[in-house]
Every structure is written in structure tokens, then in C-alpha cells.
């Protein structure tokens, strides 16, 4: 890349506001998670460990906050001083929100985290120098740093456990940041297949590991550009627009409410994950 190239194509190398010049043409991967279906069973989290070569750090390192759960289940209580949590818990699967205007992308000194053309927030391990600025700037704190050299010195996968490692993606060594990739290895494989066959990926053809296992089917994942994709229909039905930071429906006073919302939307990160609010029966 020469300086001339850099200067002439400057706008291409800059992070654009999502609603500006570059709409997604073929793909925009997005997710929706129905919190009313999520039971907090942790299956997605384990699937993520299996698919993405996440190290099990052990008790001591977990205690120090060095865990690597790209998909973490948060559990909230809403019992404001009542004697019992008598409406149960609120479970929230939290993963990288693949923001369209990701705070992490602008601050990485080496450009190790980028936005891809299909709307993913990429993390390139081999480019990462470990400044951890991306994590500092991530309001969701879904980026996980390799504080130790898990594969070698920490021996997290003792023989023959290492044979389980997924060869489709790297095992990260110390000093690099990592995070949920929307199972990019699966996406790329199916996109390549589709490309070879001269078409686009069909809805349901590719699943993320968490979506695939979810026993209640709370997670929907797909291409937001594809009008036949379930995820797009959900977003549309819930009137959640990817490119705005304040959904007009939230201001409307209506009897029947829509459940879709995005977390910390007001920070203008334009997340690609929509959550559907949990429901509780009022009759009991």
C-alpha cells in the first residue's frame, strides 16, 4: 500500500458512520436473542468453548478475571428488596455485539480490529500488539485478552486434549485480544461454498455454534440483507433499525409493545445483536 493509495483511497480506510456511504450489499450478519426463551442453561457457552478453542483457565485465573467466555451468561435479579426472587432471574447471553460503529475499531493502534464488508467486527490475532485499548473502549466488555500463554506454558490442552482443537481457527498465544467472531470460520466456509456455486448464502445454511445448540432456539442468526432471513424479519417486525441509535418505536405510546431492543444503544455503537425482552405473566 503506497502513500498515494493511502491518500487517494483515504475514505476507504476510515471507519464510516454506518448510515453513511457504504450500505451492506450482499451480507450483513446479525443476531437476535429472545430473552424469553433463554433459560440460562449455558449450552451456548460450552459450544463456544468447543468451537472456538477457548482455553479453560482454571479456578485461580478465573478468580483473577482472566476467563475466556466469548459467550457469557449474565444473570440479573429484579427483586428490588422483596423477600424472594419470585419472578425468577433474567438471563442474558452476552457476546461481542459486532457494532456497526464499533468503539474498539477506531482505537486499535495497528488496525487489528476492523469492520468487514459483511458487517462483522473482525479481530486479527496475528496483527494484535496487545495494547488492550479496544477492551478499554468496549462498553460491553466482551473482549478477552490472552493474559498467559495458554497453549504452551500453561498447558491448557494437555495431550491428548489438544486433538480436540478446531483446526479452522488459530489457537491464540499470549498477548493478543480475542472475542466472539460470530463463528467466522463457519461463515467464511459457507460463503465460499455459495460463491463457488454462484449464489448467496441461504438462510439457515450457516449457524453459529451457540445458535446451533440452543435447546430453546432463543438465538437467531443470519443475513440481515436477505429479505427471506428470519433474523431480518425479526428486526423488521420489532422495528429495530440497525442504523439509528434511538428507535422511534420506543417513543411511541402503544398498548401492544414490541420487545426488540439493543443494549447501550445510546452510546451509538449500532450493535448487530438485538435482544427481545423477557416476559413475565401478570396473572400469577
Amino acid at each position, binding site marked *: 500500500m503506497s502513500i498515494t493509495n493511502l491518500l487517494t483511497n483515504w475514505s476507504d480506510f476510515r471507519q464510516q458512520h454506518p448510515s453513511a456511504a457504504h450500505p451492506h450489499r450482499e451480507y450483513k450478519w446479525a443476531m437476535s436473542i429472545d430473552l424469553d426463551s433463554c433459560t440460562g442453561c449455558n449450552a451456548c457457552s460450552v459450544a463456544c468453548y468447543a468451537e472456538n478453542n477457548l482455553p479453560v483457565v482454571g479456578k485461580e485465573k478465573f478468580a483473577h*478475571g*482472566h476467563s475466556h467466555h466469548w459467550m457469557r451468561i449474565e444473570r440479573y435479579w429484579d427483586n428490588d428488596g422483596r423477600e424472594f426472587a419470585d419472578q425468577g432471574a433474567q438471563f442474558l447471553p452476552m457476546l461481542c455485539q459486532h457494532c456497526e460503529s464499533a468503539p474498539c475499531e477506531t482505537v*486499535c493502534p495497528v488496525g487489528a480490529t476492523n469492520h468487514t464488508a459483511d458487517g462483522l467486527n473482525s479481530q486479527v490475532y496475528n496483527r494484535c500488539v496487545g495494547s488492550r485499548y479496544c477492551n*478499554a473502549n468496549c462498553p460491553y*466488555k466482551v473482549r478477552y485478552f490472552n493474559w498467559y500463554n495458554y497453549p504452551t*506454558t500453561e498447558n491448557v490442552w494437555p495431550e491428548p486434549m489438544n486433538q480436540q482443537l478446531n483446526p479452522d481457527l488459530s489457537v491464540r498465544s499470549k498477548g493478543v485480544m480475542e472475542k466472539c467472531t460470530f463463528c467466522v470460520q463457519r461463515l467464511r466456509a459457507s460463503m465460499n461454498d455459495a460463491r463457488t456455486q454462484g449464489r448467496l448464502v441461504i438462510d439457515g445454511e450457516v449457524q453459529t455454534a451457540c445458535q446451533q445448540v440452543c435447546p430453546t432456539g432463543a438465538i437467531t442468526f443470519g443475513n440481515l440483507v436477505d429479505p427471506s432471513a428470519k433474523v431480518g424479519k425479526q428486526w423488521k417486525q420489532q422495528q429495530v433499525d440497525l442504523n439509528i441509535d434511538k428507535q422511534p418505536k420506543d417513543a411511541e405510546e402503544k398498548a401492544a409493545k414490541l420487545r426488540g431492543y439493543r443494549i447501550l444503544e445510546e*452510546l451509538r455503537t449500532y450493535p448487530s445483536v438485538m435482544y427481545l425482552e423477557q416476559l413475565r405473566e401478570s396473572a400469577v
Partner: protein
Amino acid sequence: MEKDIREDIAWAQINKDVLKSLESPRRLYWVILLIALAMIGVAVGSEIYQYTTGMGVSNKNNSHVWSLYIATFIFWIGMSHSGTLLSAILHLMHADWRKPIYRFAEAMTTFSLMTAGLFVMVHLGRLWQVYYVMPYPNERWVWPNFQSPLVWDMFAIATYLSSSVLFLYVGMIPDLAICRDNIHAGWRKKLYTIMSLGWEGTDRQWRNFRITYLTIACFLIPLAVSVHSIVASDFAMSNMPGWHVTSFPPYFVAGALYSGCAAIITLFIILRYVFRFEEYMTLPIMKKLVRLTFAIAMVWTYLNLIEFASVWYGHDQTAKDQLIFKATGPYAPYFWAMIFFGSILPLMLAFKRFQTHLPILFVVSILLNVGMWLERWMIISPSFAHGHYPWTWDHDQWPSLVQWGIVFGSFGWFTLLFMVFCKVFPSVSMYEVKEMVYHRTLALKHKPAVKGDY
């Protein structure tokens, strides 16, 4: 009335006094040098451990990714600002009193920058790939991300470091020539000969020298302001509650000048005592310095209050929560210590009797810097501990000994550099002191002096 620099001091005397500081050191010097080396040893050992084992040994974690390294980095960067302030700004303002003290202040600038630069490296998870941050044509065809404040940092620090080295060096050339002429053999002779670049004191040389020095000074002032503004933008440009504050750049610059001035007071007292520079580093100078420090302290306090007020009356509830947490949570003792050392303690400096009381000033100036270091820490850690996302809050994080060791060692590194400098280069500018004396004499001769009529 305290004694100021004597008008009748002979130029040869000045040379003699200053050059004396370059003579073989006393035993105490070696002792301190060894202590400094030991401190560096601690840091190097810690860094080797951290480098080989992984960043985890510093006891940072996923919700608390930055800690003392960045805090201390800002501290050292900040400290570097006073040298520029004293040399460049006061030079342009023709404040003569800076002349006996600016040399070591400049040296301090350079060395604290060098220390700060190390912290950037120590902080990186993959130090061995640090060259990715630099823009150079490479086989990967990849540039760094020019949007990132860290890349700006890299540029700012590199520019500032090279400029301040140049400024220090250019300003030393006439003095190096004096050294060269007063020493007759040995490595020093060779060193001074080369470094004085053939200075003969001709009119043409003086003229070129003046212009060069003035140009660099003019260049340095905006640079210095921009450097700390850029460092401030590391924080202000992010969206962390507690960081996302518009007033951060001036706040950082003020803090920088503040800690720098305090450090100059400390070093002033040490050098004056160690090298018997009472003749040059006089109390009236100290008085001016102290008043300057007091003024900056108040500016800093004001900007601090502005920050709090804008957060308090702003509509960002998260930032407000964060502020309350800082003042009441587990970091409260450090927060209030920072307020005390940074805003209350300097009120002492307003009293005349303290302005020249060196032992008290020595202690106070060190405490001011402790306060300023705490300020940096209080910017970093509480924000991470209590950010946007309650699930990942971490109120228990405490830096490990590895972090403390490296922070501790950085002071040894700075001391080492400074001590070596003092023994190799004149820490008081001889030619500028001469100028000062000359101007004073002139001023005395023409009683109703007209400004600029030299």
C-alpha cells in the same frame, strides 16, 4: 531579603563552579547510583518475568485492562512538560530567572520522556511486535490505524523526544565548548570536542545559534501542549465513563506542568545542596518557581473542579455514578489523597515563609508529585473498576508486585539517567548565567533602564 545571584561574580568563577560539578563524584554518588541500578534491576527482573510468562502476572484482567503502567506513563510524560515550559516559554518571555535552572529541567524532560516511552512498551502484550505501530513501507502492505490515539501518541512522543533532545543539545553547545576548553585529555575531551561541533564563539556562530535555539523553542511550545493533549485524547476520545470528558486536554496539560514544576523544585534543592550551587540556584529564583507552581496548582484545581462539575451536572448518569464511586468506593482513600496533595497542600505555597524554606519545600514538592501520580492512577483504575457494564465491574483489582516493581524501577532508571547527565554535562548553563549577570550589571549601570536597551 534573600541573596540573589551576585552581579559581580566573575565569569571565570562561574565556569569554575559549574565545571566543578563534573569532577569525580563523591562516594555518596556511587551509593545512590548503585541504589538506582538496583531499582532498575527490580524492574528489569519483573519485566522479564512478565515478558516470558504473560501480561497476566501484572494482575490486570479483562475488565481492568490498563493499570499502573499507563498511569505512570502519563505521570512521566507529564513531568516532561516543565522543562519545555521553563526553557522555551520563559525563554520567549525573557524571564531571566530561568537561566540557572533550565538546563537540568530540560534534562529532566528528556529523561522522563525516555522513561515514559519504556512504559508504552512494558504495557504492550506483544512487545516484540511493537514495530507494527510505526508507519513504514513493509512487505505486509499494512499501515497502522491513523485514527487511533495510541498512534498519535507514538508520533507525539517520538517527535517530542527528538525535539527535546535537540533542544537540550543545541542549548548546551556553547557550554560544551567551555568544557572542551577546560579539559585537556581523556574521553571527555573527545566527547566534548565532537559534541561542541567546532564551537568557537564567533559572532556568526552566536547569531546562528540564537536563531536556531529560538526556532526550536517556538516549535517546542505548541508541541508540548499538543503532546499532553494527545495523551489526554487517549482517554477523552474513548467512551469510558470518567474518561469521556471534553476538558481533559487542558486538564492534562495543567497537571503536566504542575508535576513538572514540583519535580524541578525537588531537583533544584538536591542540586543546590549537592553541587553547592547556592550562588546560582538562589532563593529568589526558588521563590519565583514556587509561585509559578502555586499558580499552576490552582489552575489544575480549577480544571479538576470543572471536570467534576461537568460530570455532575451533565446528563450522563453513568459518568456521574463513576464519579461518586471514585469518591466513595474502594478508591476513595486514594482519591481524597489526590485532592489533598494536589489541591490543598499547595495552598501552603502561597505563604511567603514556606516559599524559601527548602526542607519543607523538598517534602512538599515530593508530595505534590505523589498527588499527581495518584491523579493519573485515579483516572485509570476507578474507570475500569466501575464502567459502563455492571456485570464486569471489578472493585477488587489490585496491581501485582510485578507492576509495582516496574513502576518503582522507573524511578531508578530516571535517577540513573539524571545522575549520569549531571556528571557528564554541566547542569547549569554557564553561558546563560553569564548573560544574566551581564544584563543585570548593565541594568544597574543605566539606572533608569529602558527595556530592550542592552
